[in-house]
């Protein structure tokens, strides 16, 4: 493990970074406001840019969660996309229930896909999702429980490193296959779409979008502070020690299993929250979110930004996705080369990611 702890950096750099971060957050916060300006105004920002930024903020939250587990506790999970998707599904189920009789077939309870697949009753696991607090709770609870079970079994057997990665990858793969089945009652390949409203607000209204945007931004900032606080606490130091020399920590009498389990479950819950914020903004959730490639990509955002830095993870999520959006438009045939090349270059040449590059230059 060569990545290092966020070593004490020169205070000028730290201040600069902090100032830049705050500036970026303020700029982000301004976006929905600028969106409200008339379309021909010089500072106007289109709906497209706002909605896509809202998406990236959710990705950044996911990246923070991954960084917490990987960068600090050395747990490279290749299945975080599954937690993200489960959170998304929880809120998606809520949104489906809210459609109510406005669906194509006008059924008061059953979502459209259940109607034409011939369901007569709502499956038990759909009960309660008409309540927003319950759905939000499930968006945190289900990923948390899954991470708890997988983590408990894995950490107890002292499965580490690549084996843990492979197991989590198999987990998300198995979930993807399962959710693709129409018989599961989650809409199969189509998943959920055509949502109407959330908390009484129509989803396609500008105000709702701005509210979701701010909720995501607030969650991002909150998550950052939570993660930063954990990593600076005693637990955080234990985690870093586990990452760098697990057996030594064990011999010192710390419960490595518990520490790892805690951080893994927390990380999964944060991912679930990110998914819950993501789905109302993109308007669709389906099993494709479980695909192993998605999870690896999310890990790569963290690697690109610089793991073990938190800020870097968010930075990576923004920059890789911005690049992807830009490249899929200007070079639809060639963007995979650029993206793949970026992954190769970053792992090979910038083990500390973009943030490491920044630090290296400044110091």
């Amino acid at each position, binding site marked *: 493990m*060569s990545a290092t702890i966020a070593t004490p950096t020169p205070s000028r750099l730290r201040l600069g970074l902090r100032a830049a971060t705050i500036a970026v957050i303020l700029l982000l916060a301004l976006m929905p406001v600028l969106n409200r300006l008339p379309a021909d105004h010089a500072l106007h920002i289109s709906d497209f840019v706002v909605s896509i930024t809202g998406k990236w903020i959710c990705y950044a939250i996911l990246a923070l969660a991954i960084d917490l587990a990987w960068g600090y506790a050395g747990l490279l999970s290749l299945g975080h996309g599954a937690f993200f998707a489960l959170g998304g599904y929880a809120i998606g189920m809520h949104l489906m229930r809210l459609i109510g009789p406005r669906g194509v077939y006008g059924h008061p309870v059953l979502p459209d896909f259940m109607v034409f697949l011939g369901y007569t009753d709502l499956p038990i696991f759909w009960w309660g999702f008409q309540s927003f607090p319950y759905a939000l709770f499930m968006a945190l609870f289900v990923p948390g429980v899954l991470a708890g079970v997988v983590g408990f079994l894995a950490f107890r*057997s002292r499965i580490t490193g690549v084996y843990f990665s492979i197991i989590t990858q*198999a987990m998300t793969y*198995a979930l993807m*296959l399962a959710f693709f*089945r129409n018989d599961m009652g989650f809409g199969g390949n189509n998943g959920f779409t055509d949502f109407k409203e959330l908390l009484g607000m129509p989803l396609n209204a500008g105000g709702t979008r701005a509210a979701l945007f701010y909720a995501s931004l607030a969650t991002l900032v909150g998550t950052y502070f939570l993660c930063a606080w954990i990593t600076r606490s005693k637990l955080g130091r234990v985690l870093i020690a586990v990452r760098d020399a697990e057996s030594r920590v064990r011999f010192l009498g710390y419960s490595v299993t518990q520490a790892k389990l805690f951080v893994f479950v927390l990380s999964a819950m944060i991912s679930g929250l990110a998914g819950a914020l993501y789905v109302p903004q993109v308007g669709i959730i389906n099993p494709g979110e479980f695909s192993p490639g998605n999870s690896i990509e999310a890990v*790569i955002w963290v690697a690109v930004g610089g793991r073990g830095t938190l800020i870097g993870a968010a930075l990576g999520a923004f920059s890789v996705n911005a690049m992807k959006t830009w490249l899929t438009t200007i070079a639809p045939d060639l963007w995979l080369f650029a993206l793949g090349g970026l992954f*190769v270059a970053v*792992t090979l040449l910038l083990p500390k990611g973009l943030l490491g590059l920044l630090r290296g230059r400044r110091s």
Partner: protein
Amino acid sequence: MTRALFLIVLLLAASLPAHAQDAFLDALAGLAGGFTQQAEAAERLGAGGDPRALPVLRALADGRLLKRPDNTLLIRADAGVTEAATGAAADAAGAEPVRINNRVRVALRGAIGRLALVSPDAAERAAAAEAVYRTRSAENIPLLEAALARESVPRIRDQMALALAASRLVAADATVQRQGIAALAGAGTEGARALLLEARNATPALGPEIDAALVSLDRVIAVKRAAETLYQGLSLGSVLLLAALGLAVTFGVMGVINMAHGEFVMLGAYATVVVQDACRGIPWLEPWSLPLAVPAAFLVAGLAGAMLERGLIRHLYGRPLETLLMTFGVGMILQQAVRLAFGAQNREVISPAWMMGTLELPGGLMVTQNRLWVIVFSLVVLGLTIAAIRFTRFGLEMRAVTQNRRIAATMGIRTGRVDALTFAFGSGIAGMAGVALSQIDNVSPNLGTGYIIDSFMVVVFGGVGSLAGTLVGALSLGVVNKLLEPYAGAVLAKVAVLVGLMLFIQRKPRGLFPQKGRAAG
């Protein structure tokens, strides 16, 4: 003996009265009509027994029967074009192939079968017996009885007896039908079962006899089905084995996590396509294109592997997680490169004749040839891999470097070179897997992605670093998957296997065959 029979028939035909020849010409004209007319004409030609009908019907089945605008029918053969009615040489200008549909094809099969039952060629008689078995008609009973009496080849006799039984089953006379039931009860195939069920629906009076026959038949079928499931499981397992074998070297022996492994498999499949394209049009080379593709795929994937190892991976030794991410990027690049070079569409890979159709194993078990070859191939590749590691100097050096790199280096082994060769070797095996997969899966840029997770699971399940473990792991996963499939469906079976694997690995993190000693680190 058969030749004599054939001559007799020929002589008979030559001495047929004139109105019979008119019947041939009459029926022949129908082949130029619509599908319904064609089907009727084919049936009449088959029933007529005129030997001149056979080449015409064969030509129609093979798409070699042409039609001039004035409805004259012509036969195209290697020797040239002739008129169907007279056999005189003709000019094919302006003629178009006669089109047929499934209904005509069914009629043709029956007609050709009837006519070819007396053919001097054993293969033709066998095919004819099979065709008559499928068409089954009480009218064929005397024909089959005569043919059976003269048949000497046991295999064809069996087939003819079956055809006779099937034909008797649809006869009007209950005693004849009972003979058929008894014979079919011993056939032990699902086809026979279908015929019996059909007869029961048609003649309820025979119900008790047929039910009794079905009981004994079902017992045989159940055993066969179990064997079939086992075979399917072994076949799936052999595919997993092939896909995982290269990984067992690069990951198991070297500890390199190569997420681009699936792309090396894909490269091997595309190497097969290129070799086949190169061989196309060279008649003596064409049947060998697939065997030739094996070394080509090994070289292409091996070379790509060597370049990847020397250019990128060696800089990341000791950082397996970074290697994982980096190779994922490499996989994306390889996939898109192939997509741009060869197009996103599936590429056609021709299966040689010896890999098509089914083979009857002793005991009447039918197995698909392509999968049988894949099983054989996977075992051969496994054997070669073990041999290379055990008995060659390269294998010796490879083991030395894995067990203790520094001591190996002090003994004068160029460890960098061994690393590159080992990785190239593993990648080359992946390429060979691609040749086999091109025979059972799509050749598309996405080919590899479907196998990568399964391969990792197989290697970890079997025990990292143990080739025997990979073998046992792959085959048992394949069989378990196929055993579950009828109950759970294809998807849930796979999910169940994955979950089971995850639980297994949690209990035994080192897999089925854990490595012992210092190298196990």
